[in-house]
């Protein structure tokens, strides 16, 4: 319990740090959203609208610390402000309608990659020098060396455009009403396949190698020899003794990987026009939409922190040793 509280403390601190970072960053950015919007409009906006828009957006001229206090307060009351680029939609609405897809994509890809990679790693380590062990790692490392977006575009054109096997964009077919029915769900899955595949391809190699090395190290432990000496069956040793222990570093990595996944998802979302917040963030950045930018960044951070916290809890369940510390 103490461990849980301690971790919670750390995550709160981390959240506070990113909150503050988040507050400060945009305020050091050159330019302001209205001029930016004006520049984007390229002549279709009248200059005299600038001052008015600034008034409309309620750009703050209070002292920094007052803004900061207000900011912290509003974040904790769930008020992330109003999006500038989507004025007057509240940031929480913009994010709320999209974060689900990002999470779906990110988590699907993450879990698939982790499960697949770990299984491959376990088998490769167990059959040291076998086909899986010698052929797969270099192959996966090679595939994993491609940039996310490149692989995504390649897959999009090959499997989507040329072969027509998969839809080219969006989370589900336009015109379909979301619902918990087979048609809709299978549609979602078919849309999810390619984006998730590219992320899985890029990241699965890392999981496999990590698990393989960890397994090899674990296999040299005395308790594995002991298990062997005990006459246990190989599969029991492999999963219950070796993999169970070798997995522990992977569990921690799992939490960390979530942050990276969001990054990978961002690039992939852009390519597949997947309606997540990754693309939205890019847009917000380009439109200097501070509130939205902050909101998205904060939401992602909070999600990652939360996931890490959960992973920590799982880790505590899996590894009795950390419980006492």
């Amino acid at each position, binding site marked *: 319990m103490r461990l849980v509280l301690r971790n919670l403390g750390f995550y709160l601190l981390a959240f506070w740090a990113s909150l503050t970072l988040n507050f400060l960053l945009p305020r050091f950015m050159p330019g302001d959203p209205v001029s930016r919007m004006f520049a984007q409009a390229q002549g279709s906006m009248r200059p005299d609208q600038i001052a008015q828009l600034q008034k409309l957006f309620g750009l703050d001229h209070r002292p920094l610390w007052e803004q900061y206090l207000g900011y912290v307060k509003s974040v904790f009351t769930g008020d992330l402000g109003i999006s500038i680029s989507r004025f007057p939609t509240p940031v929480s609405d913009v994010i709320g309608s999209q974060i689900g897809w990002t999470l779906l994509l990110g988590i699907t890809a993450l879990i698939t990659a982790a499960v697949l990679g770990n299984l491959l790693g376990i088998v490769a380590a167990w059959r040291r020098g076998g086909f899986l062990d010698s052929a797969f790692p270099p192959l996966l490392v090679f595939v994993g060396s*491609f940039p996310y977006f*490149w692989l995504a575009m390649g897959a999009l054109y090959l499997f989507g455009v040329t072969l027509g096997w998969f839809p080219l964009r969006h989370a589900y077919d336009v015109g379909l009403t979301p619902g918990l029915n087979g048609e809709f769900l299978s549609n979602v899955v078919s849309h999810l396949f390619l984006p998730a595949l590219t992320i899985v391809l890029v990241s699965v190699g890392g999981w496999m190698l990590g698990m393989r090395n960890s397994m090899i190290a674990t296999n040299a432990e005395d308790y594995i020899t002991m298990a062997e000496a005990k006459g246990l069956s190989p599969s029991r040793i492999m999963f219950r003794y070796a993999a169970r222990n070798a997995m522990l570093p992977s569990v921690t990595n799992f939490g960390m990987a979530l*942050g990276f996944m969001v990054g990978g998802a961002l690039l992939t979302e*852009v390519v597949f026009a997947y309606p997540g917040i990754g693309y939205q*963030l890019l847009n917000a950045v380009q439109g200097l939409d501070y509130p939205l930018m902050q909101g998205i*960044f904060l939401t992602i951070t909070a999600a990652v922190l939360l996931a890490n916290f959960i992973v920590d809890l799982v880790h505590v369940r899996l590894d009795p040793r950390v419980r006492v510390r």
Partner: protein
Amino acid sequence: MTVTDAAVRPLAPPAGKKRSGRPGLGRRLLRNKKALSGAVLLAVFAALALLAPVLEPGDPSLINSTGGAAPSGAHWLGTTAKGQDVLALTLWGARSSLLVGATVGLAATAVALLIGLASAYFGRIVDDVLSLVTNIFLLIPGLPLLVILAAFLPPGTTTVVVVLVITGWAGSARVLRAQAKSIRGKDFVAASVVTGERPLRIMFREILPNMASVVMTTLLGCVIFGIGAQAGLEFLGLGDASVVSWGTNLYWAGNDGALMTGAWWAFVPSGLCIALVAFALAMVNYAVDEITNPRLRDRRSRKHKEA
């Protein structure tokens, strides 16, 4: 009976060759097939990057005419929609990409090393604070932060490097700290303290040399990260579009709708180069791991190992 011929235990220093240290990491790497192929690939890319001005003289980004020519004798890799030679762009692009990769790698590793060493050496509050900062940086989603940072610093290669270092050091710092901490706990460090060595000397002369392989691994990892992340940023249009690099090549290819118009030659080479360099680095890394971690070393005979 031949007992002693093989059963000799190396207790006394070998009489003949006095100066034999442990076989150097470098030498062992050269003997490893993976490392060698990776190193050769890297050397080829480095050479091509250095020789770009000789192989493809002139400004590679010179806009000629509406182009989009497929690969031919005149343009081995075809031309972009703006009539630029793709081969020239790819060769010149290597310069920026490799430079950024190497700089990011070195700088991020250096930062990570400083933090890791300080954290491990001084321990206590220094360690607590530095670890906290590291963990926070590690947890904050990298690419979004990258995107935000890249947008608000003035553009250019320096910015890209700075931004990548800011977001890339933490993972390495954690690894290096863990390693440094385990070495810090070794008695020889305490022995140096007792002998009266100064902290800086202990950190760099006593602890650091023992971390060579981990430093190498993180360095390679950081270079891979640098090259990949630069490409990602530039592809999103957050880099400096007027610099020729593999990332901007892909950005322009995307902008010109290379895939849509079927001009795959504008799109494939730069992506493949990124992948090949990253692959080469990863192979070297893989080999370092294999060499320095005795457990991962290739085993010769494993025939009679029962299930």
